[in-house]
């Protein structure tokens, strides 16, 4: 598992990370969300032991990551802007990885070659951007990492490849309990694979949630009554947001489905819908509760 506590980082005099603490469980996929310049990349590079935090601790398996090559042998970071040695072919890169990462799996390399249909002896810089990204995943997954850190991995990929890559990652998580951290500025891009999500804004981690918890007990409730009702109807419920559109009350309530039903029944609503929320809506209301307007933070 990955544990960060009170991590601070400055570039020159500008603070980039401000007391960030987060926790990624083993075998889970963690989505790190934030707008451009929020500090996602810095956070991930710190997590990958590339740069050193100014203060605080960054630990994987209870050991500091920075300069710890026994952990780095099992950790791969794929940056948002891919890097390959100039003039290298995929096979040369693979040899390099094989020399660096002791868990390198050659069978998998040949196996994936069939799936990908890419020529390993062609120079990587001649590939298209999407192909290069596939090469990056190809190499990374053959190193059999226990930790995979991905910075904006789906940026600019078409849906087919995106799906393919997602499925590889999920498969490794399922098969080998690989731990994945993936950053994005777009929630809908990662919500289908993440187990947990953290939102970072201006170097601060605003929120960290397990998605199952979130989805199960937040509801959008639409109500209409024949006669006027007082505010009392909401008593005892955790109302995150409410508004009235004509005679229809729309509110977001964090509570058990049956509790809400039981409470509303006596007032005999004409319209009574309890709807699930999209992940995006959940975040909007959660953040509102925390005093932020999410439109400014996420798409």
């Amino acid at each position: 598992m990955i544990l960060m506590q009170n991590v601070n980082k400055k570039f020159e005099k500008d603070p980039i990370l401000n007391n960030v603490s987060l926790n990624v469980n083993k075998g889970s996929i963690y989505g790190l969300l934030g707008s451009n310049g929020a500090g996602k990349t810095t956070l991930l590079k710190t997590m990958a032991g590339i740069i050193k935090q100014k203060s605080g601790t960054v630990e994987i398996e209870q050991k500091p990551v920075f300069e710890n090559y026994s952990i780095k042998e099992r950790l791969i970071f794929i940056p948002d802007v891919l890097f390959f040695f100039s003039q290298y072919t995929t096979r040369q890169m693979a040899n390099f990885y094989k020399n660096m990462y002791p868990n390198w799996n050659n069978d998998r390399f040949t196996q994936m070659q069939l799936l990908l249909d890419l020529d390993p002896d062609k120079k990587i810089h001649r590939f298209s951007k999407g192909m290069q990204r596939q090469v990056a995943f190809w190499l990374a997954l053959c190193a059999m990492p226990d930790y995979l850190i991905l910075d904006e991995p789906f940026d600019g990929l078409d849906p087919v490849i995106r799906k393919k890559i997602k499925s590889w990652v999920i498969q490794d998580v399922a098969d080998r309990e690989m731990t994945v951290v993936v950053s994005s500025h777009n929630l809908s891009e990662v919500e289908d694979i993440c187990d947990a999500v953290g939102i970072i804004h201006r170097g601060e981690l605003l929120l960290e949630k397990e998605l199952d918890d979130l989805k199960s007990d937040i509801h959008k409730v639409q109500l209409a009554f024949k006669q006027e009702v007082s505010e009392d109807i909401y008593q005892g419920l955790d109302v995150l947001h409410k508004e009235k559109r004509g005679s229809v009350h729309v509110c977001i309530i964090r509570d058990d489905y049956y509790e809400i039903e039981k409470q509303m029944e006596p007032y005999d609503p004409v319209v009574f819908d309890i709807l699930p929320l999209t992940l995006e809506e959940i975040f909007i209301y959660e953040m509102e509760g925390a005093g932020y307007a999410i439109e400014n933070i996420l798409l």
Partner: protein
Amino acid sequence: MQSRTFYFKKELLKQSFRTTGWIGIAYFIALTIILPLQVVMDISAERDEYNTYYFERVDDLFDINGPLQIITILTVPFLAGIFAFRYIQVKGSADFIHSLPLSRNKLFHHHFLVGYAMVVIPVIVTGLILYIMSNTMDVEELFLQRDVGVWLFFTVIIVSLMYSFTVLAGGITGVSAIQGMLSYIFLIFPVGIVYLIFFNLEMLLSGFSPGYLWEENYSGWSPIVQSVFFFESGEIDYNVMWIYAVIAVICYLIALVLYRCRPVEAASQTLIFHYLKPIFKIGVTFCFMLLFGTYFGMVQEQYIGWITFGYIFGALLGYLIAEMLIQKTWRVFGEWKGFFIYIGISLLVLASLVFDWFGYETRVPQAGEVEGIQIIDFVSYYDDPSVEFDELPKIEDEKLIKLITEFHQEIIDTGTLDRDWQSDSSEIYINYYLDNGTNIKRQYFIPSVKEFKEYLKPVYENEIFRKNSRHWLFSEKTDVKNIRIHTYRDDAVISNTLESRLMDALREDYLNASFEEIMAGEESILTIEFELEDNNYYSPFIDVPRSYTNTMDLLEKEGFHKFTDLTEQETVMIAVKNESSKLKYLHEVPFTDASKLKDVFVTQDLNQIEQIVKLEKEYDYDGKWTIAAFGPGRDEYITSFTVNEEQLPAFVKDYFK
């Protein structure tokens, strides 16, 4: 499975070689062409070619394509240092390499080693080839086996130092171009800054004494200057080389430490450690200030207004350039606070020198508090390596001490003296040893020694002064290889049997010469040059006038008439002038327009020449008439001498009537 205990990662070495390999290959090819191939070409050429080596003084490997060797030394290690560590200056590769499961120590050593190999292996292989050549081929006339060792030792140490220094410079910057720039600057900087400071102090402080040939003494502070100097002189100072070797190792260690604490995200920043920025800014500003001050001081003849302008302008330029480099944009016109503080402080320092707040310029010790004085004429002085400058004998005669302090006071009272060179100009160095154990050292340019005759005549006639000025002539340690005599036309080597007699005669003549004779340099009839065993670079010499009778007689007796007797030489033109002639020096006659020579008698008539040339042996130092003789070569000046009016033949007297 790969062995995990092996320290080096094969693929990383390979990758590093892929980026730097071309340097090693190019260097090897260059060295092969410069040295072994050149040698093969030379010995396969016709035998006559060998003669050129004698004249070009090729006697070791540094003399074979020396300038090209210098060029490679000044480029290859820098390129290797830059390219071996190129990956830390580029964001993508810096992130990637540091995400690998390798410690920073390991990363550093891999890249350092590969880069170093590119620099050192070509040198060693070339050395090996030369060694084999020296054993198997007939190359003795070019170099010996021993020379290969010396060449290898020198080249390996110099390139190692340059390489590890460049790597070190890469440790404080995130831009490859700046890395290269900083390495060159810092390798020249120690010498450059001393030169600049001394030049400026010389301009600002009258009497400031940097010492004899001080430019040379500091050249070791810069490996770049020093190696150029080595190639020129062919002399290697082994102490300096060992110091360089130690510095190379120190640079490597500091570079390692810097690498370990280098933030990876600093790639593409001009300076990585922000506390270096003010130092960098002040440094650049200061250097530009001194540089421009020197420039305007030299161009505008040390006029203080122009010098100050140069300082302010240079400081402004330096400050802006430093700021531009740090911010990586030329639009840097916002921050002036630092500049004004800097200018304020420097003007204060400048004022303290110009207005002499410390009393440096006006300080003349009382004759009573002076124990002894070393006074030396730097123009005729020759630096004898066997004697420490400060150990030269001192003048302790009280009368003379008093005279020298008066002379010193006179110079100060006269004010700034023009740096206008004349035949009797001199650079006088005075070092007072005071009773309280301290020293006062001053150095003054004297445009004309004759003008200060009142003070300088007793000094120039003092035996200690004379012996100090030509120390090599009297020292037992002086190891003379050859003595040559020259006139403007001929030269000859004196035989060994004559050497000691000639030196005795010269010593006697030199010590007995009057002030006037010493100052009569232009009228010398011949020059005697001493080639020394331990210095091919510079040979001391002494001009011999007619009045050095012992020397002249000896040479005549030994059959060197050709050198001692003007009548034996082929004179084709004679020029005569008197005191009122406008032309200052007669040797300028061939270059001077005829219209300006109306008050000079010039003749090419052989009869007239014959009559005048005879006068040379009856010279008169107090004579008001100067006669110059010219040879058949174009503008060939032989000698000149003075006579008095009665001695002149009638046709000359007629001309001036």
